[in-house]
């Protein structure tokens, strides 16, 4: 199955295709983001930027597992200085990922970038940063408040959700109430590996988040559940590595997708997926979004 290409209107953005770079993957520098755009991505989400510069967790920060990656980067970021990185990206479809410890911090960071970013994505979902990410994102009231704080600035505001909750639709609905333009699902699944030789968790932060192929079925389920409960568009993320995965996510209810881990081995995966995904005799994308709910 293939779909027709064309401008993708989603969550207040107009993208050249359905394939975006996920937050935190090769998103620390402007030139890296530009490289990914040159590799065929329809849009790029930056590394999550916070109210203060942060060096992240001690290493190891990433380790490969069977079928996935486990990471606990700890949200390293240059904070406001990231403005410098965005200069080479002026006019490009760049979504700035933001984290903060409360609604005010989210708004502060957003206001710094209101002139340079095309949209915001709120990281309410990182599972391994005490006081940030999922620490807020598991509480629907805080999700609503943080979303509200940013969406009121008037730029498209995407909210990225964590799968590590009993009911992801409660958080999706809270973001919708807060004025989100789109939901992004999912961030990593809380996980751990232990080095039996060193007798300690592999990651410096002990607990981390699982990404990659292993979590694809979890991501599809989350997108499917959100599609049943929310009206704003959903951007699917988690374990996508082929055009078939993109179609599957779209049938679950995603209007576009983000790709993270799979970029590691092949930064130009965007171009190769697009080649497999689009065809002039394909079906219109709108006809397949959510079609598995029939």
């Amino acid at each position: 199955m293939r779909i027709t290409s064309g401008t993708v209107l989603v969550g207040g953005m107009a993208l050249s295709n359905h394939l975006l770079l996920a937050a935190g993957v090769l998103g620390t520098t402007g030139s890296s983001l530009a490289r990914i755009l040159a590799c065929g991505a329809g849009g790029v989400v930056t590394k999550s930027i916070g109210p203060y510069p942060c060096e992240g967790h001690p290493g190891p920060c990433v380790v490969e597992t069977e079928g996935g990656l486990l990471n606990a980067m700890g949200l390293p970021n240059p904070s406001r200085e990231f403005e410098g990185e965005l200069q080479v990206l002026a006019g490009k479809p760049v979504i700035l990922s933001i984290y903060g410890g409360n609604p005010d911090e989210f708004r502060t960071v957003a206001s710094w970038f209101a002139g340079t970013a095309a949209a915001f994505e709120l990281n309410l979902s990182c599972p391994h940063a005490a006081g940030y990410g999922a620490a807020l994102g598991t509480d629907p009231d805080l999700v609503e408040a943080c979303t509200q704080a940013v969406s009121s600035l008037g730029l498209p505001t995407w909210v990225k959700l964590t799968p590590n909750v009993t009911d992801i639709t409660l958080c999706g609905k809270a973001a919708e109430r807060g004025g989100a333009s789109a939901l992004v699902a999912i961030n990593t699944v809380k996980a751990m590996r232990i080095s039996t030789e060193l007798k300690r968790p592999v990651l410096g932060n002990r607990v981390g988040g699982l990404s990659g192929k292993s979590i694809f079925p979890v991501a599809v389920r989350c997108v499917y559940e959100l599609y049943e409960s929310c009206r704003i568009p959903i951007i699917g993320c988690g374990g996508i590595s082929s055009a078939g995965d993109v179609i599957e996510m779209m049938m679950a209810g995603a209007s576009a997708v983000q790709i993270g881990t799979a970029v590691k081995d092949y930064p130009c995966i965007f171009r190769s997926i697009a080649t497999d995904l689009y065809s002039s005799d394909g079906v219109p994308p709108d006809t397949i979004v959510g079609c598995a709910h029939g």
Partner: protein
Amino acid sequence: MGSLRIPLWGAPMDKGALQAVRITAITQETPTVRTFSFFPGFSFRPGQFVMVTIPGVDEIPMALSRSDTITVQRVGDATGALFQTRPGDLLGIRGPFGNGFPEQEGTLAIAGGVGAAPLRPLVMHGLVECLLIGARTADELLFLPELTQKTSVLVATDDGSSGVHGPVTGLLKEIPLSEYRQICVCGPEKMMQAVLQTLDAAGMAGKSYLSLHRYMKCGIGVCGSCCIDPDGRRVCRDGPVFSGDSLLHSELGKYTRDASGRRKTV
């Protein structure tokens, strides 16, 4: 980049996982540099690096100086903690990662300080015809006796305590650069920048290979912390060895980024 000239030693490793190795010996190479030998070793190509975990402290990138050794200069917390270990202690290793140097005979190698570590295997396998080596002082010259047995060596020291007085670039003037098939370089950023300028002026940038250092967190090309401007190449995955001409208009020698991603002047 170059076909396989050097046999691969040791067992292949599950690159993805964190593997424990046991320190078997610690050798004081210079007042600030120690070589840590460990078991088991594994197959690698000269110029590749590993991510080394000092349990409970941090993980840092280190070039392999042999299939079972790293050679470390003490500079801060993690290297300091490494200097506290003893034979019998465990380290974690991920890797080897990165591309390594092309393996060609007729190589001119240029090493500054602990930059001799990744170049050592090239020399020991007879690929290096001539080695220019620099250090701050005579007693900081790394691997000198061993290397001198395998290749002709020219020395420079910042304080003139051995060889030519001044930076290693000073030695370059005496060298018929175009006679070498390739030029492999590793050392401090400023030194590499100076070397590259000289090589470029001699029209040799395209035949030179520089091993870069950038802040590395993942080592496998996913996190983005080691990317260089202006093309966003990843030092850990697309490097750490890059051809000189591809670095001519890069951030090399100008700035680098710290753990948070903030730029700092070199």
